[in-house]
C-alpha cells in the first residue's frame, strides 16, 4: 500500500486583482511505504502546496485524486491523521507557552500519553529548555520542537518540509541521522521536502523532482542519477595529448578538462570504460587513473528543472 498517491492534482490560486496562479499542474506523486522519499524542486515549484493539499489545508482543483495511507483526502483524513506527523515550513506554536506545554496541548487533544511528550523532548534534546517559552527559542530550537511535535504520534507517515532550516551543522547531522533511522525501521515512511540537494542524496531512497507544479522525474535516487549520466570518463595518463590522438583515432569523443594540466582528458559516451584501457595499452600508453563521472543530484536537478536551485 503506497503511503501517498496523487494523480493529476492541480491547484490554482485565485486572488482578487491578480491573475490566477497555477501552483500544481496535474501533479502525479507516488510514495511507497517505508524508506525516505525526497521531494525536490526549485522555489515556487509547488512542494509546500503539495504538502498542504495532502494535509487538507489547501483545497485542490477538481479532477485529481489524492490518497494518504490508503484513504481519500480530505474526506478520509480524520481516519488516518493519527498516523501522520507533519512539520510544514516553520513550526506553528503558541509563542507565550513553553515548549512542553505546546506539546502537551497537542498530545491532550489527540490522546497521546504524556510520557510520549517527554520522550520526544528528549529525542530532540530539548528537555532542559522545555519549560522556556517558545518565543524565546532560537530558530534551531523551534525547528527541533516542530520535529518533536511531528514525532509525537509515532507516525506511520512523517512529512517534513525543510526540517534542517535554522539548525547548526551538528543539528543537521542529527536530524539526518534521525530521518535515516526512521526510514530504515520499515514501519515509517518519511516524505522529506528539502532544497538541500545533498541532504536528499544522503538520506533519501527515492526521489520526486518537481518543476512548475509538475513531476519531472521520480524513482530511486540512483536511477534518477543514472538517467542523467552521460557516460563520461576522466582519464589520467603521462601524456594527455598523445592519449587524445590515440583515443580519437579509435573513435572516442575526447575533450580536455576545464583546467588542462597536460595529463588529464575527458572521454564522452563511453559504454565500457575498460575499452579505453585496452586501446591505450595497445599503443604503449598506460592509464594512471580511470574515473567514470556520475552525475550528482544537483546536476540532475538543474538539468531536469532548467532552473538554478
Amino acid at each position, binding site marked *: 500500500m503506497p503511503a501517498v498517491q496523487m494523480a493529476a492534482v492541480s491547484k490554482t490560486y485565485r486572488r482578487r486583482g491578480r491573475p490566477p496562479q497555477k501552483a500544481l499542474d496535474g501533479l502525479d506523486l507516488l510514495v511507497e511505504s517505508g524508506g525516505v522519499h525526497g521531494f525536490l524542486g526549485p522555489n515556487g515549484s509547488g512542494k509546500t502546496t503539495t504538502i498542504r493539499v495532502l494535509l487538507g489545508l489547501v483545497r485542490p482543483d477538481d479532477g485529481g485524486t489524492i490518497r494518504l495511507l490508503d484513504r481519500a483526502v480530505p474526506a478520509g483524513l480524520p481516519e488516518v491523521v493519527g498516523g501522520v506527523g507533519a512539520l510544514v515550513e516553520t513550526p506553528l506554536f503558541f509563542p507565550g507557552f513553553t515548549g512542553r506545554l505546546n506539546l502537551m496541548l497537542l498530545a491532550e487533544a489527540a490522546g497521546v500519553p504524556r510520557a510520549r511528550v517527554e520522550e520526544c523532548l528528549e529525542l530532540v534534546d530539548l528537555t532542559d529548555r522545555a519549560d522556556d517559552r517558545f518565543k524565546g527559542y532560537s530558530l534551531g530550537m523551534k525547528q527541533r520542537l516542530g520535529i518533536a511535535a511531528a514525532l509525537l504520534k509515532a507516525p506511520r507517515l512523517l512529512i517534513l518540509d525543510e526540517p534542517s532550516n535554522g539548525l547548526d551543522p551538528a543539528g543537521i547531522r542529527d536530524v539526518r541521522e*534521525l530521518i535515516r533511522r526512521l526510514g530504515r525501521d520499515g514501519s515509517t515512511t518519511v516524505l522529506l521536502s528539502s532544497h538541500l540537494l545533498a541532504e536528499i542524496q544522503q538520506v533519501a531512497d527515492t526521489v520526486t523532482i518537481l518543476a512548475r507544479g509538475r513531476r519531472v522525474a521520480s524513482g530511486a535516487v540512483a536511477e534518477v542519477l543514472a538517467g542523467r549520466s552521460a557516460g563520461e570518463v576522466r582519464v589520467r595518463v603521462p601524456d594527455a595529448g598523445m592519449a587524445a590522438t590515440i583515443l580519437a583515432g579509435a573513435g572516442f569523443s575526447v575533450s580536455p578538462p576545464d583546467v588542462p594540466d597536460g595529463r588529464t582528458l575527458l572521454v564522452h559516451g563511453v559504454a565500457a570504460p575498460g575499452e579505453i584501457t585496452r586501446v591505450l595499452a595497445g599503443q604503449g600508453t598506460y592509464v594512471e587513473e580511470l574515473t567514470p563521472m556520475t552525475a550528482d543530484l544537483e546536476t540532475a536537478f538543474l538539468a531536469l528543472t532548467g532552473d538554478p536551485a
Partner: protein
Amino acid sequence: MSAVADAPATRAVHRAPATGGRGSLFRAELHRLRSRRFLRILLGLAVLGWIAATLVAHGHYGVPTDADRATARQTVQQILQQSEAGRQQCLNDPNRPTGVPPEEACGPPVTAADFSVNDFLPHQPFDLARTGTAGALGFGAAAAVLAFLVGATWIGAEWSSRSLVALLFWVPRRSTVMGTKIAVLVLASALLGVLAQGAWLATAGILRAVDSTGGALPHGFWGHLLATQGRGVLLTVFAALLGFGLTNLIRNTGAALGIGFVYFAVIETAVKILRPAWEPWLLSSNAAGLIAPGGLKIYIFDRAGRTGFNEPRVYLVHNLQAGIVLGVVTAVLVGAGVYLFQRRDLH
C-alpha cells in the same frame, strides 16, 4: 541535539504508543485558554479592580452617627432660613414686577419636606434595595468588556501564531476545531459573567454588613436582581462571541479591537446625532436593553411637534428584542468567520 544520535533515542522514535488513547479537544482547548498569560493578567487586574471598587464604595457609604444626623438637620434648617429670608426680600422688593402673582415672582415657600436629611449626611448608608440593580448593570458591563477582550485575543493569538493551523494536523475537521473553541469560550465567558455577578453580590454583602443601617428588602427584590444578573451573564457571553467572531473574520486582534473602538466611539455617536431613529438598533442600546430591568427607554428627537420644538417619542428596547438583535448580530459574525474558516485555504 546529540540525543538524536544516541542509541537510546531509537527506542523513543519508534512505535511508542501513538494516538491510541481517546483525546479530548475540549479539555485541551480549556487547558489552552486557562494557560493564557493575558487571561491571567486580565483576571488579576479585574480582581484588583473589584477590591478597589469595594474600598471606594466603602469610603462613599457609611452608617451615620447621631451627631451626623444632628449636623445634617442643622444644615437643612440653615438652608430653610436662608431661603425664607431671600423670599421675604423678594416679596418686599419695590421693583418686583406688578401684575405677577407673588408665588410666581418669588417662588413658593420652601419647607422641610422639600429636603431629605439623608442627602446632607457626610456618608449615606448603603441601601441594597436602591443600588442592587445598578450594581448588577455595572458589573455586567465590566464583565462584557473583559469578555470581548478575551474572545478577541484568544482567537487572534491563534491566528497570529498560526497554531490554529497546526491543530488541524491533529484534528483535521475544521468545524470540530472551531466548534470546540466556541464551546470553550461560551463556557468561560459564562463563568466570567457569573463570577462578576458574584463579585457584585460579595461587594453588596460587605457594604450591607458594614455600611448599612439594615432594613427589610422589598418583596420580590431577589428575584428581580437575579433576573438582571442572569441577563448580565448572557450579555457577557454575547460580548465574548462578538469579539471572537469579529477577530476570526479578519484574523487580526489589533484590527478587530480597532474596529470595535471605531464602532462604539465614532459610528454609534454619529448615528445618534445624524440618524436618531436608528438608535434602537445600535449594539450599545441593545446591550443596555438586554440587561436593564424591563428594557431600555430611548427618547428619539426626530420630529417637530405643534409647538415647533422637537418632541421626543419613546422607543422601548425590550429585553427580548435586545436579546434577539444581539443574538442575530453575534450569529452572523461568528457564522461568517466559521464559514470562511471552512472554505479558505490555510497557509
